[in-house]
């Protein structure tokens, strides 16, 4: 009897030590949770989530101060990714924050632009080029489509356009067959 207790105890100790060692030395290095959340956010920096940008929203999610369904540019897919990462159930996008729509870029009608620089100040990623009383233009490759430049424009000369090249490259998802899952 005492032998049994002793050997099981010994076994337990050895296994425990082994596990402890493994947990320490084999642990996968991971980035802080805020970084990982931030990586899943679209970086549109639009503020629709009620935070000043994606990073602050990521910090709020990590601190448990925000739900995961407040980012319209990320959409359903983004929410699913966040839910996966955080081990939660996906929620439908909160309509109070806005609706999911196709990615677009801002385009300034250069004939109408009066060069007021208001949009430049509004752009969260410095994607608008211009100077006072000079025509402004949007660097399409750097525009995130956040729409923050639309309201400040006094002459309403900025519109959102959906770049067509993307459509051409995107192929339709093949149809799922009845039997295949």
């Amino acid at each position, binding site marked *: 009897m005492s032998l049994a207790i002793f050997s099981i105890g010994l076994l337990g100790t050895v296994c425990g030590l082994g596990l402890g060692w493994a947990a320490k030395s084999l642990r996968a290095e991971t980035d802080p949770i805020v970084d990982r959340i931030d990586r899943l956010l679209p970086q549109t920096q639009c503020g629709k989530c009620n935070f000043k940008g994606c990073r602050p929203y990521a910090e709020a999610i990590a601190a448990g101060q925000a739900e995961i369904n407040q980012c319209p540019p990320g959409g359903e897919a983004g929410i699913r990714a966040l839910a996966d990462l955080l081990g939660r159930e996906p929620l439908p996008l909160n309509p109070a924050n806005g609706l999911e729509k196709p990615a677009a870029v801002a385009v300034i009608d250069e004939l109408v632009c009066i060069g007021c620089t208001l949009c430049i100040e509004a752009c969260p990623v410095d994607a608008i080029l211009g100077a006072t009383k000079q025509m402004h233009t949007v660097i399409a490759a750097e525009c995130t489509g956040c729409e923050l430049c639309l309201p400040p424009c006094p002459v309403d000369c900025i519109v959102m356009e959906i770049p067509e090249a993307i459509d051409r490259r995107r192929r339709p998802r093949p149809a799922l067959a009845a039997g*295949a899952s």
Partner: protein
Amino acid sequence: MQDSAVERARNAGKRLFHFHGGLRLHHHKQASCQVAVQSVAIPPRLYIPLMQHAGPEATPLVGTGAHVLKGEPVARFNEPSIGYVHAPTSGTIAAIARQAITHPSGLEGLCVVLKPDGLDRWTRLQPMEHWQSADPELIRQRLCESGIVGLGGAVFPTSRKVEEARNFGIHTLILNGAECEPYISCDEMLMREQPDKVVLGALILQKAVAAEQVIIAIEDQMEEVFSALQAAISNADCTHMRLVKVRTIYPEGGEKQLIQVLTGLEIPAGCRPPELGLLCQNVATAAAVAEAVTEGKPLVQRIVTVTGNGVKRPHNLLALIGTPISTLVDACGGYTHDAARLVLGGPLMGYALASDQNPVIKAANCILVLSNRDIQSDQAEMPCIRCGECARVCPALLLPQTLNWQIRNDLLDDASDSGLGECIECGCCDYVCPSHIPLAEWFRFGKSEHQLLAMERSQSNLARDRYLAREARLEQLKQDRERRLGEKKQALRDRTSVTGGTMGQGPA
């Protein structure tokens, strides 16, 4: 790239190797190679798409109503080393409008609509008389101006390829005449009818990239081609040009597969053949190069195979770029009663077109009209039974069933790790799958999704960096302002204490 690999590549064609998998297919070429290539009459309208390859559309250089001569540029690409779009015949510009273009997406694109005047008058041509002694850079520029692109189907601008090749230093130029897809015979007919032009083009390309040797690879069943080219090579009296027969097995004519057969080397992921000192060009491209350099003619026409059970008299036709496909089919006697599918390209890699009003483009090597019995299958798609047939035939050594599963479950990164990027979309796996899973289509979808994902990621990384930089800048500005404010206050205080503080000079 290691020198040993380059050294092996230098021995290309001395010994033949195998690649994994592949299919032996019924080649169905007989129907279209019985008769000589014929020209198609100039149609009442030509539709010349301004998007001809990956990348943005060309910018029109002419306006509606302008009269242009054959070979005159009508649009220009804005990127370096891609040249112009040329008028295929003389006539007036009827419109520049959005039209259905011949593209897998089926979307519309900008086209120059040309109303031919029927005279087919060339613009002033400027042949390069002494290309043998010309600066290779001038030859490259000529290819660029003449709008020469790879005519094997990839339509990559040739001058770009030449430029890249020169940067790496090429020892062997491979001319790809192994037209391995069933039904297509345009290259075979070209090599039979104009072997001298092919050889001449090869010599010009060799000069342009300063290659030591040229290998022309053809399939072992092309007997007539072999003797024709043999004769042309000895006529041209070039000792550094060799004709190599390779097995007739699909997809032997794929660039990577052909290189593997000739050298035994695989191109590592992310590398391109020039890094091994190899440059691959299609034989039709070589012929176009010859015309551009020695005759000064830009690329405005090509040989198109029109074949399949759906056309009455399969033929190879010489058609102007922009000719509607229906005109070509009419020249072949029209459709048979059971024509059901119109394919641009071969049966394994071509894409189906919904309408025959689409124009012939530079990539159009074959118009394949199939009847219902050519395409119907007697079983709907079923789940994968993991039989492994797909992996057995995959020339890229992939496990298509795994890729298929990963893509269906949106595991695009995993799929990319499993080698999705190496898939050449040859369709071998698809063809042998007993469950009739549209594997190749899933892979094309997966590749485009992964590409877009990567693009989105790099864009969002860029946006993050710019956002953080802006935040930091704003923060810095704020601090600067505060510091300046503080300094001013401090200075003021200092001053007031000096003057006894009675002057009442508060900050404004």
